[in-house]
């Protein structure tokens, strides 16, 4: 191939060049003022500009229409800074014991784990039914729409909805968290399966493999990396959500301690310590999941 380059030297003559100004002018676009345009002529450039303008417009409009209720902004900000200082620089445990708090952290961790595991298992089977390269188009569209609706409902509303029939507690929390992660993971898994090399499935089909053989021998091995990555990403989200559910929906775990410290006892020092514990836990989870993701690759 390299020798070809040299051989080609004799065959392809260098482009004929014409240097007349008029000739260039044919290819130049000018603005109404006669200035030469330089931007790319594409739809996307226009779309980007439009999007930026619309978003900025909405933002400015939003700031004008918000009902600020005549708040004293300067005072509020200085109070906030003071509170931030109390929370983050003077953390202290006043009400709970270290052991108790760590146990509640474990509970939150377990809520996140349970909802991730259940959600992942359900999502795996569901994604087989809604991956375009595996399932019937009608089935795909129906499941994808249902899943899109389920994803659109905020997690906290799922938890509260489940709480009506199951009562506030771990069942409602796990069920609510599961619902959202199931919907999220189904979409993610289905996309991983759709990105698969179509040759792999074809080859096994040609061999006369059965459905479950294809699933176990082709789909699972070739998508496991991205599925694990998605699952761990979801686990991190579920952990954060479990904290939030404890606070907003009384679902137990460290989130509930946070809620009590913040909204019930107004104990900023304790809120600070609990926050630090949550942050440290999240950072550790992030590191572990990065390690595991690297290992599965």
């Amino acid at each position, binding site marked *: 191939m390299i020798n070809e380059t040299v051989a080609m030297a004799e065959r392809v003559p260098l482009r004929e060049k014409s240097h007349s100004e008029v000739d260039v002018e044919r290819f130049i*676009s000018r603005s109404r003022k006669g200035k030469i*345009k*330089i931007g790319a002529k594409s739809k996307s450039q226009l779309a980007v500009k439009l999007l930026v303008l619309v978003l900025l417009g909405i933002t400015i409009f939003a700031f004008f229409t918000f009902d600020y209720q005549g708040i004293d902004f300067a005072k509020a900000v200085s109070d906030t800074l003071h509170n931030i200082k109390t929370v983050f620089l003077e953390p202290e445990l006043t009400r709970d014991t270290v052991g108790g708090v760590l146990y509640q952290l474990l509970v939150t961790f377990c809520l996140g784990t349970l909802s991730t595991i259940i959600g992942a298992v359900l999502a795996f089977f569901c994604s087989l039914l809604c991956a375009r390269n595996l399932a019937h188009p009608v089935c795909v569209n129906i499941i994808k729409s249902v899943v899109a609706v389920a994803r659109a409902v905020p997690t906290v509303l799922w938890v509260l909805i489940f709480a009506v029939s199951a009562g506030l507690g771990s069942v409602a929390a796990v069920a609510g968290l599961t619902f959202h992660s199931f919907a999220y993971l189904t979409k993610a898994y289905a996309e991983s399966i759709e990105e698969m090399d179509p040759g792999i499935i074809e080859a096994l089909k040609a061999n006369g493999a059965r459905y479950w053989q294809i699933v176990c021998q082709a789909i699972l091995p070739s998508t496991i990396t991205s599925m694990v990555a998605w699952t761990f990403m979801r686990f991190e989200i579920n952990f954060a959500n479990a904290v939030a559910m404890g606070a907003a929906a009384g679902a137990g775990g460290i989130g509930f301690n946070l809620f009590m410290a913040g909204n019930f006892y107004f104990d900023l020092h304790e809120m600070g310590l609990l926050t630090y514990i949550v942050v440290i836990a999240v950072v550790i989870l992030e590191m572990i999941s990065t390690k595991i993701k690297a290992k599965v690759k």
Partner: protein
Amino acid sequence: MALLSFQNVSKTYNNVTKALQDVTFSIEEGEFVSIIGPSGAGKSTLLRCINRLVDASQGTIFFDGHNVTLSKKKELRELRTKTAMIFQHYNLVDRLSVVENVLHGRLGQKSTISGAAGHYTEEEKKEAFRIIQEMGLEEQAYKRCDELSGGQKQRVGIARAIMQHPKLILCDEPIASLDPKSSKVIMDHLKSINQTKNITCLVNLHQVDVAIKYSERIIGVTAGKIVYDGPTSGLTKDMIHEIYQSSEHDLITDVQG
């Protein structure tokens, strides 16, 4: 005085990897020089030391009468406007048009604000179009660079380099990602720039035959050291084998006469 001279230049990465060891050579204005050698020999590092994308660890480099290794911010910017660079992977801003990418060649000479905002004078724009036409890309001028083929992208890269009015063009494996036909077009363009505009060209290549065909002088680099520096005609088969540290039969390419 030589346009470019290296005096005992060495480069060590992280205090361990020796990329360049005691490199000394000089290049006169108007020369077309190829640097050949196996991958990892330090060819890229050598080029990047000249425009200081990489800082040499030891030794001095003189370009156009200035000590490059000592250049501070403003001098460095001036140096870079005089040394254009062409890359293996073209390094264009894919989402901007061909004209905009070519005009990037002027950034070093423009004020911060007009450069950042992409305001160029009508003269600059006209010149850009002239160069684009020279490269045979006038039909593509308003296309986004990600719509172009590899060969076309590299021609945009050359146009951007010319737009700088450089004294020296550094080419880092300009044809390594191209097919033979586009490779030839690119090399022909470089050669013609060198001859008609009298711009000095320093080209990293790993195709020995191409280097022999296009350059008057070849520098062979192995393991960070210069093992050959002389006219193309003086490059023997044995020398090539020494540069690539291979026995006769291993080498895919052989000298054609």
